[in-house]
């Protein structure tokens, strides 16, 4: 039986009708059309589905959409300001922290949740925050460098 679900995603309010068995990831991608958030493993291991829920990084593939009722969600699509990339997005591009790009939205959302809470994390704190995000192309050195460059920017 469908239930009403009110969400705020990237600053916009939505009212949807959702079946209880649908995950937050499915709703973000299929109902809202925000396909920047990726389905990787679907089991909470890879982090490609990471979004911010009330400021905290969560794996949207393991969350029932109805559990996000009334919450504020940010996805990768919400970071750009007009034509200007978010500093984390710019750093990932400039430092070559992207190859195929599939893990990148999750990496950036997990990094953003960290920097919002702790603007100047240590290298170890960044590694801890990204431990739940897998990249199968670049290795993690450039990703770490990209986040560090933003953490040390101001």
């Amino acid at each position, binding site marked *: 039986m469908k239930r009403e679900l009110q969400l705020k995603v990237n600053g916009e309010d939505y009212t949807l009708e959702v079946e*209880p068995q*649908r995950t937050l990831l499915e709703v973000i991608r299929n109902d809202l059309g925000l396909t920047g958030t990726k389905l990787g493993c679907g089991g*909470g291991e890879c982090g490609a589905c990471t979004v911010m829920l009330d400021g905290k990084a*969560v794996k949207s593939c393991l969350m*029932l959409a109805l559990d996000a009722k009334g919450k504020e969600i940010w996805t990768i699509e919400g970071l750009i300001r007009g034509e200007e990339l978010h500093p984390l997005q710019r750093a990932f591009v400039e430092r070559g922290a992207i190859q195929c790009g599939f893990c990148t939205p999750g990496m950036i959302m997990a990094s953003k949740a960290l920097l919002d809470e702790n603007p100047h994390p240590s290298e170890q704190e960044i590694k801890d925050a990204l431990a*739940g995000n897998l990249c199968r192309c670049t290795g993690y050195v450039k990703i770490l460098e990209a986040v560090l460059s933003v953490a040390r920017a101001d």
Partner: protein
Amino acid sequence: MKRFELLEPNSIEEACRLLSQYGEEAKVIAGGTALVKLMKKRLVHPSYLVNMKGVKDLGFIREGKDRLTIGALATLREIEKSSLVRQRLQVVAEMVHTIGSVQIRNVGTLAGNLCFADPASDPAPILIALGANLKVVSLEGRRVLPLEEFFTDFYETALSRDEIVEEIQIPFLPRGSEAVYLKHTMRVAFDLAIVGVAVRLDMSSKDGVCMNSKIVLGGVGSTPVRAKKAEGLLKGKVLGDSLIPEVAVVASTEIDPIQDVRASAEYRREMIEVFVERGIKEALDRANGGAS
């Protein structure tokens, strides 16, 4: 995922009533990080989910006279970051930090981890070593259950059908007592324990003798297990450099480890020896005011 009906009680008593009404067809969900994964794989397919998140005032972390009390909806991340937990039971904060990833800890709960009863659960061994209890609620009322008696088999607990964990009670360590939790994994991050070892030493402040100990192992059997023979060898002794390795050997022989995808039984046995030795040494160091 298969279709199910989501039930959203406002109180823990109402949740018990729903469990009693729907029986085996219902499951309790809190964070959902373990359950949703199993449901997606169709390993479990409940017809009803009893969602606890609408129950108010279960997210607390409280300090009592002699113990810490953690509500069933407190997330792992809240526990890890709590200054109260860090000050009063740092070993619990350290252990929680090794579970899953930040994204999982932001959502998953300690009570959920225990009720899921994965034999490789990290909280289980150390909380048993600390003498933790669970307060559980059913339609008949409340009872307090030692965590040591909670786990009955792989993914099975002593909870009856309509019982729900309300809070976890963790006694503070008395002066002279120390505890550590060591976890052996293949990767540094985001792995389940091949062997998880909790060691708790109660040292006499007068003569440096070990009055009591608990050695609790996770990931090696269908439930967490205590190495009671090894514990017995520590009792009443000054823990010297020759005794500790001997005790570790006894621990590794008294346990009959499982074999699974993560490791063979032989390898687990070797690692029990290594990590029990390290655990005793580290707990002793801490008791002697060393690395904390």
